[in-house]
């Protein structure tokens, strides 16, 4: 048996912004999604104003005037860099770790360790991350991943930054005050089913007979039930290669012409093929899609897509761009205004398991060498140091991000200033 600790960065994007802009301290701050659409991160002060997660920006815009709310466009290069630093520190402190998202990681500890010692060590880790990166962490300790997630939630709700949920009396108390829908792994539909069965609190679910749980909710439900009992069904998982890779973006303005539409599409192919090669996969098919302004008066739908099956599995950017553009010309309609497009690479297989095919040219070793050289160059000299002409030189479609902070940690020209 082991202890699982979920380390989660508090209000991560806002905390990143505050590192280089101390003026934001104490103010209500939100970070907006791509294209400044909706709220993706809130400071504690912004939460106090009652701004819900995912709120569309136009609905809260007035708060900027009335309550000095500061709304920032998202700055992913900054968040990715700080996430990397936090994870580095965690990995050095704990050998067994599963990075779960940009701001969360599960840490695994042997259960022989006395719990008070473990709590102290978690506090030490928290202090180190805070001092070195300024990012505040919450840590939840429990006997299973699901309970560690709950422990983290309890830490955030209380004022304790490290929450010990290893004691079964505490677990029961925590489950009693938690809505079953707030348990990690219980989706909206399962929550509704449990509510109709009269189970509102998570404790009610745990009190169910395991045979009945299995009958009603299947093996996944039973696993969840066991996890909440303190019986771990999961271990720290190695990162699995993704089964599909998606890349899409809303445009900063509406696009009408096919040529202009092809540029963002080519860019998304470039980005997703890079990810594909990084995990040593190839795609057997791709899906491209576009979204237009919906016009109910003429009964016009807003979504058009085309699925393309490749002649042979590929990870070759220029081949994929050609195929994607062919697909795009199939669904493109003159006169429509497009607001978004995207690509999904599907049917991924491991590079090594692709049988060589004499009749296709896209498995030419020279081509794959070229692709890897491009990836190396872009990794070394910065994104888009080498790119495909189809992506366009001066993109006009890039999303609006009116209030974006500087790339303080990834761009020499945008370093923070220290007054002397």
């Amino acid at each position: 048996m082991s202890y699982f600790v979920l380390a989660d960065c508090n209000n991560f994007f806002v905390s990143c912004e505050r590192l280089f802009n101390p003026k934001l301290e104490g103010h209500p701050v939100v970070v907006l999604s791509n294209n400044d659409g909706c709220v993706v991160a809130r400071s504690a002060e912004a939460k106090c104003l009652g701004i819900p997660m995912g709120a569309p920006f136009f609905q809260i815009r007035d708060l900027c005037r009335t309550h000095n709310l500061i709304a920032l466009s998202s700055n992913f290069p900054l968040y990715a860099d700080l996430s990397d630093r936090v994870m580095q520190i965690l990995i050095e402190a704990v050998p067994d770790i599963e990075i779960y998202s940009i701001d969360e990681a599960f840490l695994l500890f042997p259960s022989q360790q006395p719990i008070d010692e473990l709590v102290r060590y978690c506090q030490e880790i928290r202090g180190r991350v805070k001092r070195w990166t300024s990012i505040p962490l919450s840590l939840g300790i429990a006997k299973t991943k699901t309970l560690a997630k709950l422990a983290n939630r309890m830490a955030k709700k209380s004022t304790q930054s490290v929450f010990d949920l290893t004691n079964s009396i505490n677990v029961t108390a925590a489950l009693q005050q938690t809505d079953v829908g707030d348990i990690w792994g219980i989706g909206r539909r399962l929550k509704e089913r449990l509510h109709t069965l009269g189970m509102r609190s998570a404790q009610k679910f745990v009190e169910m007979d395991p045979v009945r749980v299995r009958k009603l909710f299947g093996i996944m439900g039973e696993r969840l039930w066991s996890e909440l009992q303190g019986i771990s069904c999961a271990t720290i998982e190695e990162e699995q290669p993704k089964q599909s890779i998606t890349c899409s973006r809303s445009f900063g303005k509406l696009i009408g012409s096919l040529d202009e539409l092809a540029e963002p599409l080519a860019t998304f192919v470039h980005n997703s093929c890079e990810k594909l090669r990084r995990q040593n996969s190839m795609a057997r098919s791709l899906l491209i899609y576009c979204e237009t302004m919906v016009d109910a008066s003429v009964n016009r739908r807003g979504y058009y897509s085309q699925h393309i099956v490749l002649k042979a599995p590929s990870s070759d950017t220029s081949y994929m761009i050609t195929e994607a553009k062919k697909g795009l010309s199939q669904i493109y309609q003159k006169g429509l205004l497009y607001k978004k497009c995207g690509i999904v690479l599907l049917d991924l297989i491991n590079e090594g398991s692709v049988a060589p095919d004499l009749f296709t040219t896209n498995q030419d070793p020279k081509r794959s060498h070229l692709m890897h050289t491009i990836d190396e160059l872009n990794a070394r000299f910065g994104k888009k140091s080498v790119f495909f002409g189809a992506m366009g030189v001066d993109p006009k479609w890039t999303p609006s991000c009116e209030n974006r902070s500087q790339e303080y940690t990834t761009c020499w020209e945008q370093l923070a200033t220290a007054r002397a």
Partner: protein
Amino acid sequence: MKNTPEDLAAIPLFDIPVAAGFPSPAENSIEQKLDLNCHLIKNPAATFFLRVSGDSMQGAGIHNNDLLIVDRSLEPLSGRIVIASVNGELTVKRLKREGPKWWLVPENSKYPPIDITEEMELRIWGVVTYAIHSSL
């Protein structure tokens, strides 16, 4: 190839001649032996770069537009040059302690020392380890 003094002075990036065409960093090991990053940065996770603006630290050899290497993991001891966040702005000064009192001291007689008081919104942000000055 023998190492002549000229060869030693140059820092080759790849060990293949440029004329060979597209360099392949994957296959050719980097010959560079001295890594300035390793030398200047002891704790990468806690190290940040900042740009200097102003002349208040001239006496400490820190000039306008210099590049500062800042390590947030180091203890802000008296006598060290620090980045402090003062009233929402990042500033570089020397931290000094006299008995129970702490000061942020500029190194230019044009500017007065800043007395750190209880009411101030002040936080030590990090410790400056190196200042890099361009001679060009």
